[in-house]
């Protein structure tokens, strides 16, 4: 059906334009208050002061790119998980991965290992913590039949245990450590080092490509695992690969930007409302929408209470929470209407 393809491409185009608009908007926001004209002249003509250049390219741009990568990764992970679990409350953090990451960071801090790798210590600890959880979950995954519901419960338990453990560690740590852990958990996209940003971008795009290899499998899964089997989907392999992919994307995002919730929960729901449930469009739309959402929330977080920055996780929680309630109500009404 050609006009379906056109409709999808059109949706994607609109989303990309919104993404560029939001990014440009965020690029012009900041306490240094740069006029859009100044920015344009700097980008296009290379004319401007060194300070402006530094602020634009070394502070604001990496932040926006990280927001793009993390927002896209988390939404993508959300789509994958919601397709597999067929549970609307599942999001990347439900599996306990962010809890593991937070625990990794807390343990690394309290054992005084933060000096080990300089700037990369906390992200590495976070990723190690996340990896431990992923490893633990994969023990469950490698049984011959992957029981998703059991995995979900395990993930929720891991989340609880991790948060308690982290609180325990925080209660016995020194003031400096305490702040360090707390602010890492709250999350921030303020990264000026290009290496993590590039890493995040590569991971996000790779994840998107791999996910697309399974877009039909995802469509088939929407009516149940056994039914997908009837349609020729290698269900076990698909579950394993996609679960691993979602976990890695989440683990990386959490390590680099702290715990930013709701992105993976709200975006897929919202996007499916206007783009449909076919994964061929849902994957890319959610990716771009997630990026838009996070960049927007970050723009709000850094400008509402200048010069202090709000934690971006707070903004995504508030905005995301409201959007989620709206989406659920819309869905309930549509069902009732029928």
């Amino acid at each position, binding site marked *: 059906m050609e006009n379906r393809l056109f409709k999808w491409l059109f949706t994607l185009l609109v989303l990309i334009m919104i993404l560029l608009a939001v990014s440009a908007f965020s690029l012009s926001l900041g306490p240094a208050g740069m006029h859009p004209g100044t920015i344009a002249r700097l980008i296009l003509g290379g004319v401007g002061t060194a300070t402006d250049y530094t602020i634009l390219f070394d502070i604001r741009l990496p932040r926006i790119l990280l927001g793009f990568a993390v927002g896209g990764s988390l939404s993508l992970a959300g789509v994958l998980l919601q397709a597999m679990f067929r549970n609307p409350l599942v999001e990347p953090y439900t599996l306990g991965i962010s809890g593991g990451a937070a625990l990794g960071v807390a343990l690394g801090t309290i054992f005084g290992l933060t000096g080990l790798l300089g700037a990369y210590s906390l992200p590495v600890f976070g990723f190690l913590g996340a990896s431990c959880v992923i490893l633990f979950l994969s023990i469950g995954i490698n049984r011959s039949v992957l029981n998703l519901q059991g995995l979900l419960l395990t993930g929720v338990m891991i989340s609880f245990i991790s948060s308690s453990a982290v609180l325990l560690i925080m209660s016995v740590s020194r003031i400096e450590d305490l702040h360090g852990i707390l602010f890492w958990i709250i999350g921030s996209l303020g990264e*000026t080092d290009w290496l993590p940003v590039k890493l995040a971008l590569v991971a996000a795009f790779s994840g998107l490509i791999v996910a697309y290899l399974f877009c039909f499998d995802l469509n088939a899964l929407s009516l149940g695992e056994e039914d997908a089997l009837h349609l020729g989907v290698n269900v076990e392999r698909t579950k394993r690969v996609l679960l691993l992919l979602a976990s890695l994307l989440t683990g990386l995002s959490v390590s680099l930007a702290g715990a930013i919730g709701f992105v993976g929960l709200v975006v897929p729901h919202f996007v499916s409302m206007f783009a449909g449930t076919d994964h061929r469009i849902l994957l890319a739309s959610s990716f771009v929408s997630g990026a838009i959402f996070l960049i927007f929330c970050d723009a709000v977080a850094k400008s509402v209470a200048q010069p202090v920055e709000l934690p971006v996780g707070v903004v995504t929680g508030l905005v995301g929470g409201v959007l989620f309630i709206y989406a659920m109500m819309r869905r309930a009404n549509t069902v009732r209407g029928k």
Partner: protein
Amino acid sequence: MKIIVLLASLLVAGMFPAHAAAGPADAAGLSPRRIISLGPTITEKLYLLGAQDRLVGVTTYCERPPEARAKEKVGNVTQVNMEKIVELKPDLVVATSLTERRAVLGLKRLGIRVIVFNEPRSYEEMNRQFLELGRIVGREREAEGIVRAAERRVDVIKKRVRGLPRPKVFIQLGAKPSFAATKDSFVNDFIELAGGTNIAREAKTGFYNREEVVRQDPDIIIIVLMGAATGNEKKGWQKFHALRAVRNDKIFIMDPYRMCSPTPRTFVDALEEMVKALHPGA
């Protein structure tokens, strides 16, 4: 694109002094003209050194002296706004151990000189840091003068309390949970120099159980808390009628700023206040 980068790097190279790229190690030369302080104590010390007209940025918590409030804000004690800092074009940023590590590294990467001062663990270390700060901002003589004056006053106090009986003192730094100063904190030095004994001196961590306080039965209890909790805390202790400190009405409240984040001068002020509490007659 390459042209932009080239032009920009030339501009950047021209703007910052050649030795600023690496970090704290700098050649003897120009003292910094545009300083940003990322801690209230640092701000206070800079004013004390008379370097305040070179101070271009402070935190939202820098309230002492009151003039500091008028300076540009670049963030709070833990989180700083990198853009604001870059915009102010500082040639020195002085940070604390509470400052977000990612920001410190980020600023260094942008070629800005950053010096981090950790929490001093003793009175001597505090003075050393003050002298270091003075040297860095080019007010070495003033720093030495202040430290010497402070040490003279401390000597006087030491003479005053020599030979006097040393009362047992408990300084409470935190309410829930109860937190005291061990020998790793310079607050401990307050007590020692004022001629008292810190009952929490040898404790392994700062978490000090109330029961333990009752068991030790100190002569004097000093409450050093921030905010409204202080009044309640005093009432809380006064319920323990068995305590010597309660019976003799020796529960004092002291200014947390002076006690916890002192400059050499305010340290001595607080010390004198403490001596009054410990040795009312001396």
